[in-house]
Every structure is written in C-alpha cells, then in structure tokens.
C-alpha cells in the first residue's frame, strides 16, 4: 500500500504539480515549434514519450553498472547525451526497415528528439533524486504524460486562435507565450495536490 502511494505521488507530481513544460520549463523549443496542429503535437508527444522511457532505463543501467563501479560519475552528462543520440538513431533505422508506416508518421520528429532537453533532464533527475529503477520508470512515464498533455493543450488553444483577431503588437509568437502563461497559472493551482 505504501509503495502504491509512493508511485501515485510521483506520477501526479510529474504530470501536474511539477509539469515539465509549465512548471519546470523544459522542452520549450518543441513546445513552441510542434504545436501548430493537433496531429503534430500528438505525434511528437508519442515519439518523445517512447524515447524518454527507454532512455531513462538505459541510462539508469549505464550509470549504476558502468559509471559508478568505475568511479566515473562526472562523465554522466556526456554519457547520457550520447546514449540518447545513439538510441534515437537506432530507433530511426529500425523503424525505417521494420515499420515503414510508423516511420512515415514519426520519422520527421525523430531527429528533433535528440536535442529535446526533457529527455536528458529526466535521465539526470532519475540519478539526482536517487530513484529506484521502478520509480525511475514511473517518473519518466509521468513526465511524458505531462509533456504530451502540455502539447495538446497548447495545440488546442492555437487552433482556436486562428478564428480571433489578435492585437497587431502580439501577433505570432508573443501571443503563444501569453497563452502559455495562462495555462501555467492553471497548473500552478494544482501545486497543492501532491504532498
């Protein structure tokens, strides 16, 4: 029971109270760039979620089975980013050969994922928060859900925004950030739920 409670807390915390986009300010490049349509944001969300969960398992294993025994903890940043880049490349090659339909849907997002700062952040936070492997997986799932949720929310607002007149001064990117600011206020209201 205690264990379930812990899982639930980490999950809710990473989805809402510490949302990766609105509260922790991670992965903002893709948040602005990929939310032009609903399909784009769902596609990007799915691709990033998959890579985040896999990368956090791989990097966790690398850290505790290779870096710690060799006392090379200070190399974690380089190791993790290379792991993510290699993993993304492998996924791309595999999808191209094995599942071409999925590749066509996900392919354009894959090169962008390697420099998505959320993935590196999740792998690094798994280590600094000293999560167990189970908790690391839960945390990365929560982070991905939070990220996808953020993309979908903003995409919805941007679709609605096509039908209204925006002051000339704020047209383009400025209004997107102001919309994001209001969504962030809503997420701020959820801060108290995970204590």
């Amino acid at each position: 029971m205690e264990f379930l409670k812990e899982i639930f807390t980490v999950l809710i915390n990473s989805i809402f109270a510490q949302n990766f986009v609105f509260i922790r300010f991670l992965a903002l490049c893709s948040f602005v760039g990929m939310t032009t349509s609903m399909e784009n944001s769902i596609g990007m969300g799915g691709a990033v979620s998959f890579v985040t969960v896999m990368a956090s398992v791989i990097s966790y294993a690398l850290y505790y089975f290779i870096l710690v025994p060799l006392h090379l903890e200070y190399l974690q940043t380089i190791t993790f980013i290379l792991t993510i880049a290699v993993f993304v490349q492998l996924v791309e090659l595999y999808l191209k050969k094995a599942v071409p339909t999925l590749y066509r849907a996900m392919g354009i997002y894959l090169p962008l994922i390697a420099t998505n700062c959320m993935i590196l952040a999740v792998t690094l936070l798994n280590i600094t928060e000293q999560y167990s492997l189970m908790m690391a997986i839960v945390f990365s799932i929560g982070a991905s859900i939070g990220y996808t949720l953020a993309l979908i929310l903003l995409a919805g607002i941007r679709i609605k925004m096509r039908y209204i007149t925006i002051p000339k001064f704020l047209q383009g990117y400025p209004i997107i950030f102001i919309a994001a600011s209001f969504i962030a206020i809503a997420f701020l209201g959820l801060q108290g739920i995970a204590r």
Partner: protein
Amino acid sequence: MTNLKQVFLRGVLQDNPVLILMIGLCSVLAVSVTTVNAIGMTIAYSFVLIGSELTISAIRNVIPKTLRIPIFIIVIGSFTTIIQLLVKAYSPSLDKSLGIFIPLIVVNCIIIGRVEAFSSKNTMLASLIDSLGMSVGYGMVIVSIAFIRELLGSGTVFGFPIFPSFIKPMLIFVLPPGAFFIIGIEIAIINAINKRLAKNKGK
C-alpha cells in the same frame, strides 16, 4: 572588418537566438528568477559556446562529414562538464540554484546550431566574434527578464529591497506564469524594433 561587425550584431539583434530564433528558451525562463542567477547562467553558457565554437572551427578541416554530429556533441559535452565541475567547486550556492540547467547546456539548441551552421565553416576569428555576439544576445535577454521578474516579483534589485515595505511585490512574476508573460512581451518588443529597422533600411 565591417563583416565581423555584422556577424556580431546579427547575434544580438536580427538573429537573436532567444527572441527571434526561439531556441534555448528553457534555461532563459527557468533561471531568470533572480538577476544573480541569470548572470551566473550567462557566464556558464558563454564559456561553453565560445569554447566549443573555437574548438570546432580549429578542427573543422579534419572532421569527417558523417561523424560531425557525435563529434560536436562530445566537444560541447566536455565543455559543459568542465563548467559544471568548476561551478560546483567554486560556487556551490549558484550550483544549487541553477541545478539541472548547467548540464542541460549540452542540449541547448543554440550551441549545436551555431557550431553546425557557422563555426564548422568559418575561421577561428569569425567563430569567436559569432560566439561573442550570440552570448551577448543570450545574456541580454536572460538578464533583462530576470531584472524585471525580480523587480516586480520580489521587489528587489540584485537582492536589495528597493520598495518601501507597504508595497507588496507581485509574487506571480517569480512564479512560472510570469516568465512566460514577460518573454511574450519582450518578443513583441524586439519584433517591433526589427520591423522598424527593416522599414528604415528600405527607405
């Protein structure tokens, strides 16, 4: 000479990495809670950017085309690790408040973007100027956002209170929504400036 000046100014105004190209936003919004943090972040960021641009442009002729991205990542990652260890050793309090955003410099799209687009094709001098311009452009944005957020949100400048105590600061500006709001306004302002500059040039 005018060419180098243009390279420098492009990073500050027309191609400002944060406000125009919309990359490297994460650290700008997250760290700009106090001006001191913002200056610390700018120093760390400039170190990595200048170091990697100089290194890459020095070895640009021996990098094989197909392996360039992994090599860029290793060079940037090494500089990031150096600054991470330096900050941890000499300023533990700054390390604590910047937290995860120092190692995240490695995935900052500005750096890999400039290395790929500029210094892998240009001389070391031009790369130095370009990285300085980009650093100034980045620093200007992050410090100005931090200054406004600190002034409105906690009523202080560099940590010193400047308003009399009966004026309550607007807490929302140090919280995440304030950051989104202020960067939105700053983007609008720089767009207006650039539009006016372009108009004047056209005349």
